[in-house]
């Protein structure tokens, strides 16, 4: 009896061990067929294809590249182009679109954890891509790519660190954030384009008296209401020439600047007077065209594609029914330009660098740029020499009306753009009455100093 037990247990032990060995032996076999291990092989095949016949549509199977971007950055037209790209190359693009108020946190967490997507979107900006994004560590140097020569020089400068280009512009940076207004409402109420803040307030009062909400604002997205402040940089610069340089050299503080205090007080005043309506805290940016088309709102902060976007939602609303003027807070009359915008970067530790490079090359081709310009209403001129232009008369007239231009502060001033979300929380705290303009500015100064110190900026250390 005892003996048979022993024999049985020996059998069982051997069987168990065998099953373990079988499992562990089986694994490599199984995994060799998995997409993960197929990837390096496929990408090496891609690079071989590159060197042998540039531009040839050598099909790569089983490669999926991930592209993570904030909401509103990847246009529907780009996703359609992505499908075309897959057809031509066999490389599938998995677009991961993240709500805008969560994007920066998520991207930075992924990059800091060493688990970045193959391609990621980020705003350009020569200071921020170096200090915040750390492109030298996190992104692939794209300087030798075929499309680099076509990129607009100003746009390329905002994507370069130490002479190396790390990103590819994905949006139109010629557009500016301005007040878009419903021409019909303005005409019927006899309102002229405001040139000062008091004109602007008077216009809002007139509109509100008619039961129309003067301004559509959307705080819940976390980024849009923030625009009102740094986009007014040119106003501060006009009042205090050299302010941006002094801020960058730690010789000035925002809290000491009168224009900035004024801008923030006026933001608060507009909301308090009801010019932003009742639901500005919960409105959504994505609903702007839909709401604007209803005629219940007269103005909003938008770039020059809004007319076309509204026209898409409601064909009765003509593209040229939307006009533009600069945000007249602090009596600003300087056109607020920004050579920076959302851009594509390739993650340095990506296993699919070659496939990702192919995607970027595809997106910068003549036909893709043409397709994007034709199909994305807010794209008038992408920052490439081989991209077509489609400025309408309204937009040309708008740009011509403001001969003086100035760069917005999120680009001109260091350590401002990376704290966009926090700045947004501060401004919404201002709107809720939890903070005063002075406190908002002090918080911004404090975060700038913290970031400068951690980045070992000589002006702060």
């Amino acid at each position, binding site marked *: 009896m005892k003996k048979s037990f022993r024999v049985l247990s020996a059998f069982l032990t051997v069987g168990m061990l065998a099953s373990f060995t079988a499992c562990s032996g089986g694994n490599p076999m199984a995994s060799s067929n998995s997409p993960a291990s197929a990837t390096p092989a496929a990408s090496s095949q891609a690079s071989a294809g590159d060197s042998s016949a540039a531009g040839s549509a050598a099909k790569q199977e089983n490669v999926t590249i991930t592209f993570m971007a904030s909401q509103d950055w990847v246009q529907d037209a780009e996703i359609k182009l992505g499908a075309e790209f897959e057809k031509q190359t066999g490389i599938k693009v998995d677009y991961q679109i993240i709500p805008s108020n969560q994007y920066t*946190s998520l991207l930075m967490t992924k990059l800091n954890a060493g688990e970045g997507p193959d391609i990621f979107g980020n705003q350009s900006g020569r200071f921020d891509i170096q200090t915040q994004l750390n492109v030298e560590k996190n992104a692939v140097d794209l300087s030798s790519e075929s499309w680099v020569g076509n990129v607009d020089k100003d746009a390329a400068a905002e994507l370069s660190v130490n002479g190396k280009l790390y990103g590819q512009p994905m949006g139109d940076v010629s557009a500016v954030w301005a007040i878009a207004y419903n021409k019909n409402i303005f005409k019927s109420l006899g309102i002229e384009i405001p040139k000062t803040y008091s004109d602007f307030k008077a216009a809002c009062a007139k509109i509100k008296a008619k039961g129309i909400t003067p301004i559509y604002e959307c705080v819940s997205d976390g980024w849009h209401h923030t625009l009102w402040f740094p986009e007014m940089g040119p106003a501060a610069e006009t009042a205090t020439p050299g302010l941006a340089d002094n801020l960058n050299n730690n010789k000035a503080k925002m809290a000491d600047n009168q224009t900035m205090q004024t801008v923030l007080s006026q933001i608060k005043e507009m909301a308090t007077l009801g010019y932003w309506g009742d639901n500005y805290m919960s409105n959504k940016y994505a609903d702007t065209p839909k709401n604007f088309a209803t005629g219940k709102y007269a103005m909003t902060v938008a770039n020059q594609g809004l007319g076309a976007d509204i026209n898409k939602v409601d064909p009765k609303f003509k593209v040229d029914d939307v006009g533009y003027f600069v945000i007249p807070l602090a009596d600003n009359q300087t056109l607020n330009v920004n050579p920076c915008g959302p851009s594509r970067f390739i993650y340095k530790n990506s296993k699919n660098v070659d496939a990702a490079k192919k995607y970027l090359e595809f997106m910068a081709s003549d036909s893709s740029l043409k397709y994007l310009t034709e199909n994305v209403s807010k794209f008038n001129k992408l920052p490439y020499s081989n991209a077509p232009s489609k400025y309408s008369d309204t937009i040309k007239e708008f740009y011509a009306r403001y001969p003086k231009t100035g760069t917005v502060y999120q680009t001109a001033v260091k350590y401002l753009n990376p704290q966009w979300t926090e700045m947004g*929380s501060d401004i*919404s*705290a201002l709107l809720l009455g939890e903070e005063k303009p002075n406190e908002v500015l002090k918080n911004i100064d404090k975060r700038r100093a913290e970031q400068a110190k951690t980045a070992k900026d000589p002006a702060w250390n």
Partner: protein
Amino acid sequence: MNKNKTYPFYFTIGALLLYTVLFVLPGIMGIGYSFTDWSAYSDKLNFVGFENFKTVFSADENYIKILTNTLLFTVVTTILKNALGLLMAVLLTKHIKFLNFHRGIIFMPNVLSTLIVGMIFTSILDPATGLLNTFFNSTGLGFFAKPWLTTSQFAFGSVMAVDIWKGLGYIMTILIAGILSISPTYYEAASIDGANGVQAFFKITLPLLLPTLATTTVLNVIYGLKIFDMVYAMTNGGPGKATTEVLYTAVFKMFSNGQYAVGTALSSVMFLFMVVIGFFMIRVMTKNEVVE
């Protein structure tokens, strides 16, 4: 069976080793890191003493608010989930029609993903187009229609309410199991003695349910202190500055900003809270346990 037989100590080594490597060691390392200037901007680590803790407790930062928010969330949700869960459990152990259907309905929110629930509720609680305010406005109850998630007055309460709604079913289920395990003979004896329903509840159900309630309290407290996804999906700490910011949303933001050291310092402070709370809860819970 020999009750005096004690198993040798080395039987626990495997479990202890795993526990140490996976839980204790990272915990201690985390506390260690909170005394350094660890950040995403530098590869070097320098010892900075209590600098990060000073930041956490300094008056011009709102980390104290974050800690109190987390504790407030824990206390409120624990009490209400237990109280409402108990009420539901008592009701749903009576002889009523469609008993299991009712139980199922109340339990249902619990199986949904928190993020999805959060997103659905941001839409339901939208002040202009949301289902709730539309309902109030269309039934003449317009004065109840409030900006639920967009004012500091209502935001935190709304988040807690949704979390209670979602977690209620789970607590109720545990309490139903507790109630059903109480022998019906007690109730029979009580009714013979002329006890009414309320008396039976306070003299029989509640005392015998205390161990179960202790379990649900522990579960709720741990859940509350670790809350992240519900707040993240509904308000992401807003509106304004840290109105609904809780520990883990703050730590998440700090890590994404590359401020690892302050983030770990904040977690360490919370860890201390959890250890103290946990210690006392275990003491209270095991007080009446009989050792065989």
